[in-house]
């Protein structure tokens, strides 16, 4: 029996929740940032080395594509455990929200690389031909054509990817990763304090809506198509 009344919410320690919100947002946004920094070049590489791409190169494309597929098929919680030694190397500890940025970034990067790839593939082949006909070098085609023309679509991927990372942070909480996930787990699961669980869920839903809303507004402002 799920024992909960709405008035229980007022008895929750507000400072604890506020700290957890800040931890969650910090690890989500920093992981997203690092993942995008790595994933954008990878996404570009996937597109340009494809058959018919401007730097067509089958071996590179197949290797990169396979590595991404393999990494994407490892469930986040197992990946997070698997990379603990690496996390210790980089951060000095495997616990807490800062440490979780390492597995979160590693898990999100291949996923985002695929999203970037799809966004870039939307570019009309005719535009690449037109740019070539003007004398554009291949490098210029990437940063003067692909990236600016696909920028709105790339921004749109930020909604899905940030929300996915937010979901990962909840799992990270179970591994001592801090944030709302850990608060929900420690209090809601281990101590049957259902009010804390409900509060965390409500906050995560709100964060998701806000991220989605901001991303969509940015997309609408940027897109001229």
């Amino acid at each position, binding site marked *: 029996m799920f024992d909960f009344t709405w008035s229980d919410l007022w008895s929750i320690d507000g400072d604890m929740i506020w700290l957890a919100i800040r931890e969650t947002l910090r690890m989500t946004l920093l992981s997203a940032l690092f993942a995008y920094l790595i994933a954008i070049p990878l996404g570009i590489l996937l597109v340009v080395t494809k058959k018919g791409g401007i730097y067509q190169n089958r071996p590179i494309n197949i290797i990169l594509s396979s590595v991404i597929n393999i990494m994407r098929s490892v469930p986040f919680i197992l990946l997070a455990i698997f990379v603990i030694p690496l996390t210790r190397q980089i951060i000095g500890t495997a616990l807490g929200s800062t440490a979780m940025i390492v597995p979160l970034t590693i898990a999100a990067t291949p996923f985002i690389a695929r999203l970037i790839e799809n966004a870039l593939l939307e570019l*009309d082949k*005719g*535009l690449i*031909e*037109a*740019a*070539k*006909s*003007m*004398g*554009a*070098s291949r490098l*210029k*085609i990437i940063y*003067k*054509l692909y990236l*600016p*023309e696909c*920028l*709105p679509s790339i921004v749109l991927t930020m909604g899905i990817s940030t929300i996915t990372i937010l979901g990962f942070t909840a799992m990270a909480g179970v591994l001592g990763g801090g944030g709302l996930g850990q608060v929900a787990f420690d209090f809601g699961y281990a101590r049957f304090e259902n009010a804390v669980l409900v509060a965390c869920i409500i906050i995560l839903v709100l964060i998701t809506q806000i991220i989605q809303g901001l991303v969509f507004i940015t997309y609408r402002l*940027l*897109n*001229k*198509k």
Partner: protein
Amino acid sequence: MGKALSVQNLSKEFGGGGEKFTALDNLTFDVKCGEIFGIMGQSGAGKSTLIRCLNMLERPTGGKIIFNDQNIADLGEWHLPKIRAQFGMIFQNFNLLAQRNVLKNIYFPLEVARNKNTETKARARELLELVGLSDKCKAYPRTLSGGQKQRVAIARALVNNPHILLCDEPTSALDSSCSADILNLLKSINEKFNLTIIIITHDQYVANEICDRVAIIEKGKITEIKKIKNRKEAKDV
């Protein structure tokens, strides 16, 4: 009249190994400076492949393309951007950049081309006026009609002062009155700048309307090069 471009024994085959498809079979023709040269044929005849070979968007598998006393068919990938920048090209589907406004579309070749002839942005505005769209300089392509898009594409193709303008079915996506406008614009550009224009089309009307000479291409071969009633001589008389 000098030659703007000389094509000698040009061939293009697709598909290595087992099955080969010959798209262009040993074509030879010259394009004179300042003329409007048409290439006409049914779809699948090889005219799209041909026009893409002329600025090396497609690499021919045999023959020569002599442009400015140089066989450009021999050049490595690294040299091609510089050569291509000396051609302007317009397309059936206009190929405007959706995220750039009209003026910035016309700037685009200035930003990407490695070309000594690169002109200033003032030239972009002049060209926009020439194609009659000065009032649309801040508009985005999505808000333009087909005919307007093609006018922007023409201005963009001219901004680098090309020696030759290549037109790939420029009016096929337009209705007949828009087509006539675009053909008139091309004609006036040809006269004003003495610019050589090569235009491919499947449409007899287009060929008759603006071309000085037309090459008929069938199954990758030129079957005939005929003179259309010569506009220029008629005008000079």
